[in-house]
């Protein structure tokens, strides 16, 4: 009996490959461009089950293949953003992705059987949490690939991130899967599984009750600021690749000039109009101020004038293109206060390099509360955005632009997690995508898909008081605890493995001696 556990033969299950197939299909709808929470809850169950019913090496290779195929499908043409060929990017990145994610199942396969009873179920969730935490720190795409993003449709569960960060949800989902597999392996025998089920059930219930209570009884303090959003960008221009813009500017500066300054003029006119209609803050989306060096400088100067003259805060992103394609574009966000001063200048960093966690956010005070801002996929870096929570930011801006239609929904789904983690109101004006405004608990205050809207203006009353969250105070404590827990459980598993091996060896010796 003991020996069986150590030599760790696969559980016999003639449906083994059916589970692999189901798991693979479910992964397609768990991560990537089409996330469905139900699939994300179920997928790991079948994959762990498959691993447990296969020999370690062989099972791992199959899982690797499954992840490669499912991720290949799941991410569609997301990779069509880099300057590389999309196919090449996919060929490089998908196997790396698959290799990294499949390791979790390998760790569980190797370690969990060495641990007694229900404790074995902790291997997979601890490993997953540690992996997600460390991986997101390095990933140039930030939190884009995280499994818990699929929970965007469950506001009650999402409240958990106000304590643990998004990685708490990784733990919750992964533990669900390992618990179900464990129950399965006990042949659903109530007598054997009820204690374990009660432990996981109590944990889940705690998370649900916390979320329900938070959403039912907590609202931001009274006080709102009136925000008007304008989108006047030229679709054709903003969907061009940087190199194409540079070449247009180099070859036909007159056309480039006409197109871009026309847009600038509209933005300025509409800003004045909205200010007079009652706006206290006017926001533009990312890439609104697209132009050459001279034009963006002029736009910024004009923006300062308008802000002063109309007494408004103006959120003004610029996108400076240089005729030399070798010079990278300058994607920058300015916020101008009612005196015409620049109170925030931020250069977009997201999706540009590895390990982007050293960025410092600018925070400034206003009569409408403390504010800070980043742009578009900068928001997908929990470690950076946490600074805003830590400094007590009330309103956070994230002007965005979504030139790739297929990732519009995926991208906006990720935004409320940062909100709930840090307790600020979010203002996310989005060109070619979904503009989203939430309160500090992630409740939607306003949502509009620009592609479906007949008007270019959005008006929202945004709460001026954020809330302090546990996460903004203790930071990634939960993830660090998971790291400690993971190390502890690995050591425990190895020691136990040795001990049982020694025991079984000595009992063999004893048997031999007796015979």
């Amino acid at each position: 009996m003991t020996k069986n556990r150590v030599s760790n033969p696969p559980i016999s299950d003639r449906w083994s490959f059916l589970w692999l197939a189901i798991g693979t299909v479910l992964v397609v709808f768990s991560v990537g461009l089409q996330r469905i929470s139900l699939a994300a809850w179920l997928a790991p169950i079948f994959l762990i089950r498959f691993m447990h019913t296969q020999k370690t090496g062989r099972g791992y290779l199959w899982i690797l293949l499954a992840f490669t195929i499912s991720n290949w499908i799941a991410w569609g043409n997301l990779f069509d953003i880099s300057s590389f060929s999309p196919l090449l990017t996919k060929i490089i990145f998908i196997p790396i992705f698959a290799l990294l994610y499949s390791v979790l199942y390998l760790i569980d396969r190797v370690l969990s059987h060495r641990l007694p009873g229900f404790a074995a179920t902790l291997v997979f969730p601890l490993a997953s949490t540690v992996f997600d935490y460390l991986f997101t720190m390095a990933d140039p795409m930030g939190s884009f690939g995280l499994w818990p993003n699929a929970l965007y449709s469950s506001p009650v569960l999402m409240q958990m991130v106000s304590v643990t960060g998004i990685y708490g949800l990784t733990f919750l989902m992964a533990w669900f899967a390992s618990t179900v597999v464990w129950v399965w392996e006990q042949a659903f025998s109530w007598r054997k599984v009820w204690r374990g089920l009660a432990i996981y059930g109590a944990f889940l219930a705690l998370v649900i009750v916390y979320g329900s209570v938070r959403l039912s009884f907590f609202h931001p303090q009274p006080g709102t600021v009136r925000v008007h959003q304008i989108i006047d960008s030229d679709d054709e221009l903003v969907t061009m690749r940087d190199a194409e813009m540079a070449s247009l500017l180099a070859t036909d500066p007159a056309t480039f000039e006409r197109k871009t300054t026309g847009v600038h003029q509209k933005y300025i006119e509409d800003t004045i109009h909205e200010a007079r209609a009652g706006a206290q803050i006017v926001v533009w989306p990312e890439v609104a101020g697209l132009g050459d060096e001279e034009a963006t400088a002029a736009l910024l100067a004009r923006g300062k004038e308008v802000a002063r003259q109309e007494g408004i805060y103006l959120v003004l992103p610029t996108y400076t293109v240089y005729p030399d394609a070798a010079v990278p574009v300058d994607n920058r966000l300015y916020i101008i206060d009612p005196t015409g001063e620049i109170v925030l200048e931020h250069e977009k960093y997201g999706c540009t390099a590895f390990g982007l966690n050293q960025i410092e956010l600018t925070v400034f005070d206003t009569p409408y509360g403390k504010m800070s801002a980043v742009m578009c996929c900068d928001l997908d870096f929990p470690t950076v955005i946490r600074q805003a929570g830590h400094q007590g930011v009330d309103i956070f801006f994230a002007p965005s632009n979504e030139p790739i239609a297929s990732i519009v929904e995926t991208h906006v789904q990720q935004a409320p997690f940062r909100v709930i983690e840090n307790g600020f109101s979010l203002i996310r004006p989005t060109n070619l995508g979904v503009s989203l405004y939430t309160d500090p608990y992630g409740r939607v205050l306003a949502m509009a898909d620009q592609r479906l809207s007949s008007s270019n203006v959005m008006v929202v009353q945004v709460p001026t008081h954020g809330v302090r969250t546990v996460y903004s105070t203790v930071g990634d404590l939960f993830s660090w605890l998971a790291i400690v827990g993971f190390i502890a459980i690995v050591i425990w598993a190895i020691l136990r493995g040795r001990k049982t091996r020694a025991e079984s060896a000595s009992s063999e010796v004893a048997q031999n001696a007796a015979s």
Partner: protein
Amino acid sequence: MMKKSVRTPPISDRWSFLWLAIAAVCLVFIWGKWSVSLAGWLAPVFLLRVMRTQKVIRGYLLVLLVLVVTTVITWTGITDPVICGFMGFLASLAFLIDRLLTPRLKGFMATLVLPLAMTALDFFIYNNNPAAGSIGSWAYAQNSNLVLMQLVSITGIWGVTFLTAWFASIVNWAWERAFSWSEIRRGVAVYGGVLLFILAFGSLRLALFTPQAGTVRIHSFIVLEQDPEKLLGLWDTDKEAFRRVTLSMVDPLIEGTIREARAGAQIVVWPEAAAFGSPEDIDALIARGQQVAQAENIYLAMGLWILKPDSQEPRLVIVDPSGKIVLNHLKYAYGMGTPVNEVDLQTVDTPYGRLSGVLCGDLDYTSKINQAGRKGVDILLVPSFEGHHEQSPWHVRFAPFRAVENGFSLVRLTTGGVSIATDPYGRLLAYMDYFKTNDRVMVVQVPTQRESTVYAITGDLFGWLAVAGFVVIAVWAIFRGRKAKAQAAALPETEAPSA
């Protein structure tokens, strides 16, 4: 053996009162002032357990007591305690029916008694309830679960009632078999399959469908600062003073309308009871509204409260850009105007789709709002008014269900409460809390095209199926009970010789 299965004595369970206590806690959070989805799933589970672990009368009295007390707790401040108590009583009936019928049925089929009874009762009581519409249905506890809510686009809210009640009877069925996997696996698989299917339907509907392109810009604003009850008190005591106050409210409404029109509104909406006055004063206001609508080229929806010597009329009047009155709706909720059985919703075709409008509590009348679905309404305007502060969050929770059921976009502007706008799938497009907002203007881009839904076509079909199903299972249970009793009576004689 046979006899035992027919007249099951209460299951012995020394924790019975613990289950009762848990049920009581859950019940406070199932409806009324607070609503937590989890409570909506768990409360029936434990109520049923209590019923089945107690003798019929004693168990029923306990359940009734807990239901009445918790209903009064959770609804106090919203409605009369007597009405609360009565709602508690109505909710208790399904559990009594289950206790009486389930022991007479064998196996898995018996789990259908509670869901069929609860759904049939819910449908019967609340679908056409002239007093307050569907407000008492427990289905609304699932308001935070948009995925599950998609089910109402087929079944109406009755499908949600069925699903949560069936969960309760399934859990109890498994509990009574000591969760022995070999006995319960088929039953769990059946229910799990149904639940999975419904969640997959909801997930896919939300993931794959968005409204068609094209929106209309709707501006709505609230100027009322007076306490309406004081205002109406003034009407009784000092009509001159009342008139002075109400006339002073007119200019801000007209000016606000012009301001919003010039800011880009295509439709401007006032809340329910934006203006109060005698028929003459209100007629004068409507005439000004017509002028403004024409001058600014907008649709204007006005919530008006007309005071006559012997009655009050809450009305919604919509004026088109030519200044013509195109819709004139008299509220029907709570017996305030139109008798419920005479309700015929008006619609108006506009460049922004087919528009209709009702007032506040009208929206809770499932079978009436279903008319909007059948008539192909694209946008439903629901100017609302909520008297008390503590009322604010509870009422708005019901609103998205109507949008999902009938596939229209919804704009609900609320004085003294939460204003929302949703798309035809119940996704929130705008949210504004009266008590938290400095500048009470809500601007929203609303899709101009409806989505067709099964419920809009079939309406009460699922509700009637549940009623039919309940009748069948009740008759069957009674018949089986008799037959078994007869057999049980006959058994000792036949057995005697062999012994």
